[in-house]
């Protein structure tokens, strides 16, 4: 929990961009789209987990 999640998301972004480019150059358009979509969904799940954690923390903190 910390700076590593930011680096992780940036790395996934760069990686999916590279993979998408390579797949596009080799002529596999549909697989490139799916790979890009998979990276996006992975990042969305990570961010949603963080937001869920935020909501639980807020609930515990301001419950009384």
């Amino acid at each position, binding site marked *: 929990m910390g700076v590593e999640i930011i680096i992780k*998301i*940036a790395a996934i972004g760069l990686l999916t961009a590279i993979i998408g480019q390579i797949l596009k150059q080799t002529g596999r358009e549909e697989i490139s789209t799916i790979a890009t979509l998979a990276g996006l969904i992975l990042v969305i799940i*990570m961010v949603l987990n963080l937001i869920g954690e935020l909501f639980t923390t807020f609930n515990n903190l301001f419950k009384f």
Partner: protein
Amino acid sequence: MDIIIRIVAIGLITCLATLIVKPVRSDFAIFIAIAGGLVILFLVLGYVSDIFDTFRSIISATGVSSDLYKILIKIIGIGYLIEFAVGVCTDTGNSSLGDKILLGGKIVIMVMALPIVTNILQIIMGLLPS
């Protein structure tokens, strides 16, 4: 002092990561910004409970009813949460949606603050000579 260095470092790293990723994939830059904001928020939220504990001891010393204090704490929590959501909406380019969240937060806070208003009115009515 340690915590502020960590907050500044995480903020700068988030900025740099957003700058690097934005030309390649602009949709990921938004997620990096959101994650960075959340990480900074998590770093600070632990200290908020310390502040509330201190406030609670002060309130219990003054003898004011603890119901009012609970409402106050909840209003502060709503304020922080709304602030974060509006920031995310504005970052992603939906500033009008952010304004609507802001309006919703204001109305919810107003509804939650109504018991305080009636309490004040009751005190004033009690002070008036009948």
